[in-house]
């Protein structure tokens, strides 16, 4: 067993230079969570991008120490920063979805809505976006135009302006047609302070509607799976819904859009960051029948499937009814439901009460969910 990424048995393939040969730093992974099979894994695996424990470890062990800074260390969907006395939310995200066009959207509106939503989770209404295109040599021009048109339309719908951008082209075979990066900034209204540390026992947990639609929609087209009915992505910009919620309760404690890793990952992150326990009622979680069916077929848990137009909110108990009413009055929150509460017991842990009356732990996913054998 090796404690360092360099040099490891088999760490260099085909006689390629090791990281040290290339002047790269050695990485001591002995303090990371794991000493076993990934212990001497010197390379990135897909799970590092899955939004689960591996992603978090990559950020906490490599990126955060490398960059330093208190703002990044908060690890929110967007950073709350002050500039010239103004509180801004600032966020960036990259999009590598395949296929580029899927039921309910495409990579273009996903890239706009994703960053708009990251800002919205700080309570900010997005104002300006940047847009970086990484195009693969050979991609058809109408595809690029279709993506750009979708971005424009999504930006107009969200009330945000794409103010700057960049284009790069990589050689054929080095990309999936189009990769996108968007960054955005928006103003955080006075009195709004959304962060997990504000969660207290007694807070009510509300989800804005049906979960799992985006992940299952992508899976259905990517893998050519048919589930009997077409499932569309829920891709949408949530700024308006957040405005409606803040209008009735400026004292919301935390918002999170449960994208990669799904509702489970969002709840686990909040439990860990807030040091409170969370109890959810499994029966109360809105799961559309088509998503439940698809997940049953594939052996997946809908709670871990990605969403792109949903949020989960922790609301002071006394404001819960008003917030729920406001959400249900908004088209993107019509299916909102209370699914649980924050509790003082089992801090840092999410527990589901099962429909039959038992309990189970809901854990942060490791990487991506894997469809099971039978």
């Amino acid at each position, binding site marked *: 067993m090796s404690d360092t990424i360099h040099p490891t048995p*088999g760490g260099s*393939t085909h006689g390629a230079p090791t990281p040290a040969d290339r002047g790269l730093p050695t990485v001591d992974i002995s303090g990371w*969570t*794991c*000493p*076993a*099979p*990934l*212990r001497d*894994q010197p*390379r*990135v*695996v*897909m*799970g590092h991008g899955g939004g689960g*424990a*591996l992603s978090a470890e990559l950020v906490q062990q490599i990126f955060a120490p490398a960059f330093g800074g208190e703002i990044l260390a908060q690890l929110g969907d967007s950073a709350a920063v002050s500039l010239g006395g103004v509180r801004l939310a600032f966020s960036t995200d990259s999009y590598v979805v395949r296929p580029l066009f899927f039921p309910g959207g495409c990579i273009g509106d996903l890239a706009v809505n994703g960053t708009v939503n990251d800002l919205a989770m700080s309570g900010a209404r997005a104002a300006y976006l940047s847009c970086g295109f990484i195009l693969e040599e050979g991609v058809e021009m109408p595809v690029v135009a279709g993506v750009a048109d979708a971005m424009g339309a999504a930006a107009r719908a969200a009330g945000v302006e794409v103010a700057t951008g960049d284009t790069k082209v990589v050689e054929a075979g080095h990309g999936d047609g189009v990769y996108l990066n968007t960054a955005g900034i928006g103003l955080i209204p006075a009195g709004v302070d959304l962060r997990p540390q504000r969660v207290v026992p007694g807070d*009510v947990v509300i989800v804005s509607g049906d979960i799992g639609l985006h992940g299952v929609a992508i899976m259905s087209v990517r*893998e050519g*799976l048919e589930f009997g009915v077409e499932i569309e992505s829920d891709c949408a910009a949530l700024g308006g819904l957040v405005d409606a919620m803040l209008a009735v309760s400026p004292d919301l404690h935390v918002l999170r859009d449960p994208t990669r890793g799904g509702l489970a990952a969002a709840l686990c992150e909040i439990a860990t960051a807030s040091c409170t326990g969370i*109890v959810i*009622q499994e*029966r*109360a979680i809105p799961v559309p*029948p*088509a998503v*439940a*069916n698809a997940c*049953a077929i*594939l*052996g997946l848990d809908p709670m871990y499937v990605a969403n792109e137009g949903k949020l989960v909110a922790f609301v002071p108990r006394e404001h819960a009814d008003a917030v729920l009413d406001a959400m249900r009055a908004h088209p993107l929150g019509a299916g909102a439901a*209370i*699914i*649980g*509460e924050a509790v003082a*017991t*089992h801090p840092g*842990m999410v*527990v589901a*009460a*099962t*429909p*039959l*009356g*038992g*309990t*189970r*732990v809901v*854990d942060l996913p*490791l990487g991506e969910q*894997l*469809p*099971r*054998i*039978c």
Partner: protein
Amino acid sequence: MKYLDEFQNPELAGRLLDEIRSTVTRPWALMEVCGGQTHTIIRHGIDQLLPDEVELIHGPGCPVCVTPLEVIDKALEIAARPDVIFCSFGDMLRVPGSDRDLFQVRSRGGDVRVVYSPLDALKIAQQNPHREVVFFGIGFETTAPPNAMTVHQARKLGIPNFSMLVSHVRVPPAIEAIMTAPDCRVQAFLAAGHVCSVMGMGEYPELADRFRVPIVVTGFEPLDILEGIRRTVRQLERGEHTVDNAYPRAVRSEGNPAAQAMLADVFEVTDRAWRGIGTIPASGWRLSERYRELDAEYRFSVDGITTKEPAACRSGEVLQGFIKPHECEAFGTLCTPRTPLGATMVSSEGACAAYYLYRRLGTTPTPQEASPVV
């Protein structure tokens, strides 16, 4: 989905539980054979709801868990070859071999692909005539027929670049091995419904008679499990030991003759090593001599592999029902889903994974503590 919901109905579950409670008069130890059943039991907290007298012992029926380390290492060696596209169901990718897993092979440039059907692998072979395409054919009687059909199709279509690495296992010899083990505590079996839907129930009466154990064919939804337990306990209390079908919506006593004919055409019975347990006579299938050229072990000459199983791993005892996962000293410390010592911790059907995901003993609240709030 309405159909599935009916098999998770809390009121009906309550009635079954009441009946089990009123029937049981002394302690009984039942083994659910299938890992899918184990996950339903733990995920829904069924074991917490049963009377103390009814103990569920988790059986060896996780195809990923019992695939021998030697076969995993062969898969890893074949998958690492530059001329190979290696296709597998998703949950095999994270299973540790002696020194790596398929994800790690992929991160080093191996072309490892997740497929949802063996026929997808055959399609990939047709689309890539200049590459060798290998499908990892593992599992119980449930997955064996489609794999057999795929081999049959490859021969029929004359696809020269397709082969299969086969490590199928059969349930009845495993039941026999469990019952003849000196420390065996199992008094009855919940048989795996999916296996019986293929093979029928013809192999079970002899086992029930010889070992004087009730065998109840059981499905996978919560109410299926409870009904299987109810019927098993009733037999035990009455001193009976018959084969009973509690899953008639999927299982006919003769099974699926067409699938059985396909198995007989393509496979032949062989002794098979079970990971953590050892070799069980006549407990597996391999490709028959007539299909030898489609056998990846033959085509790639991967003999002479030396395996290295972690000494601390007690998954074999878990698979045979001698210990519960949390009774292993490495559980949750040395061995976690991200640091699995054995396949039982990483497979989606593994008993150790189920306990880790859903039941951190000592920290998971009881149903009373996790009181409903909505």
